[in-house]
């Protein structure tokens, strides 16, 4: 499993009566780009939260390995400290702080007091946020907040990046930037993108895992999956409801 950066074994998550994640075996190689898709209620976000430690898994419900470590039941910050960058579904940023401050808080842990400022300045240029760097994040547009959050991930120089619906509610132009950003990240690190927006997934390329009713429906290259009858049925059937 050495070259596997993420691996889950028979991972399950149950809420009351509902089995949100149904023993999923998922694995990802170094530097791989994987999209996790599925209709609403397929258990994408729950699965995502299991990876990030936001939902605690007890050992009876399977195992999660990240970078060779058994992280089952770890708390988020411990998982992050393994070099995992996380962007959650609703943009989670520090609204009351400026863009620069947000990024500094992220860079500080990796680059220390000295390095942080330089790193932040670099990232700000990379994201083209120079003009907003002293504004409160809370005052920025939704799309820009998404970008800032990506920035927070970048500052961590992660080996593994988990993005939950990065494309939610952003304009076409921004989408293109987002795609190139993600590809940029993918140069150094493996990336998992959770999304249900097919077009965006197409733009990203890479391989795809389809979740349905908490279980893996199929896995493969984008086009293959997109054209698969079962997947279409699931999506369309779901739409029909």
């Amino acid at each position, binding site marked *: 499993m050495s070259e596997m950066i993420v691996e889950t074994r028979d991972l399950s998550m149950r809420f009351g009566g509902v089995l949100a994640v149904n023993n999923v075996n998922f694995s990802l190689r170094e530097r791989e780009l994987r999209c996790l898709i599925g209709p609403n*209620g397929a258990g994408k976000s729950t699965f995502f939260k299991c990876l990030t430690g936001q939902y605690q898994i007890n050992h009876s419900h399977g195992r999660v390995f990240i970078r060779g470590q058994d992280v089952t039941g770890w708390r988020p910050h411990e998982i992050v400290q393994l070099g995992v960058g996380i962007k959650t579904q609703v943009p989670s940023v520090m609204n*009351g702080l400026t863009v620069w401050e947000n990024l500094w808080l992220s860079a500080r842990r990796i680059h220390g007091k000295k390095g942080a400022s330089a790193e932040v300045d670099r990232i700000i240029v990379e994201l083209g946020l120079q003009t907003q760097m002293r504004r409160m994040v809370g005052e920025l547009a939704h799309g820009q907040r998404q970008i800032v959050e990506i920035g927070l991930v970048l500052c961590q120089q992660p080996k593994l990046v988990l993005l939950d619906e990065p494309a939610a509610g952003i304009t076409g132009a921004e989408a293109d930037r987002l795609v190139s950003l993600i590809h940029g990240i993918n140069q150094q690190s493996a990336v998992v993108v959770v999304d249900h927006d097919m077009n965006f997934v197409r733009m990203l390329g890479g391989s795809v895992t389809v979740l349905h009713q908490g279980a893996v429906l199929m896995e493969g290259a984008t086009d293959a999956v997109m054209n698969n009858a079962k997947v279409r049925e699931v999506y369309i059937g779901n739409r029909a409801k």
Partner: protein
Amino acid sequence: MIGDAANFTSAGRTHWGWVIAIFILLLLLPAGFDTNTPTLLGIWALFALSLGLMWGYAGILSFGHAAYFGLGAYTYAITSMNLGESTAAWIFAIVLPAFVAALIGAMMFYGRISDVYMGVITLVFSLILAKFMGATAGDAYSIGNARLGGFNGIPAFPILNVPGDPSTPIFGTALYYVVLCCLVLCYLVSRWVLSSAFGRILLGIRENEARIELLGYNAPAYKTAIFSLSAAMAGMAGCLFASWAEIVTPALFGLGQSVEVIIWVIAGGLGTLMGPVIGAVLLGTMKLLLGEQTFIDNSLVIGGILVLVVLLLPRGLLPTVMGWRKQHGQRSVSRARSNSMRRRGGERRQLGAGVEHGKAGQNHE
């Protein structure tokens, strides 16, 4: 670390001009005035500062901060009675509250207890202490040669003395200067903390604890640390109060104390350090003046003020004034706006969280 202070502005900065000017003024005060009341105000200011630091910058509101104030006072009284010398007692009165707070803080924060629920626990802890201390009149309850005395409290313990020299007690003007120095010291310490990485991470926690954790910081540890530091300051204030009042009573742990300090902070200005100090001094003075007459009950006035402050200047006195002063400075205004936005947003988020959790499990996905 000060190098990037220009970029990291939300932690606020030391207004050296003001600090020095006020400090000199206060140094000269004994020349013109009786120091008895100013000493008390200084002690209250220190108490308010301790809460202001924790609440304003880490977003942790304790409904029972008096617990640590009282602990400081009692610890000092008991230790000094047993040792007859105040230096060790003084140090102990700071360390013990800090330690207790660390335990309680860890219990709450690692237990993921937040907003209202945290409020209850802090409140209950202070109530337990108050109840217990009120029921310790029997001779069974004595530590060394100090009888806890229940409702009587502990009178006639040695007041602060020049370190190492029990024969020269510190009172009157001397005590005033000691209090003043403690206040300034704690202010500078707070400033230093806020300008450090630790302080900035606290700001992050105040804004979005979940995100700070997803950046790889152990939020509960940081919260516990600031809770303990704040308690240490409160304990110092309590110790000074004991030495000023020359008696400690269970009322020190009471709900009233906890309420007042909260009012001082919110009225003075949440998210500033000077605000709580100013709030404590102004409202404290008013309380004392009202206490000298019985025509209007002073809780009537204090209460009225709190309601008005929350309704009319939710950001508190100091930030509002600052806002006026720099009407034209774009940055400060924008900060001000998002500050108040933050407070509301903050409440919403906590609230939302509360509701989410309340039904966690029905919402899968």
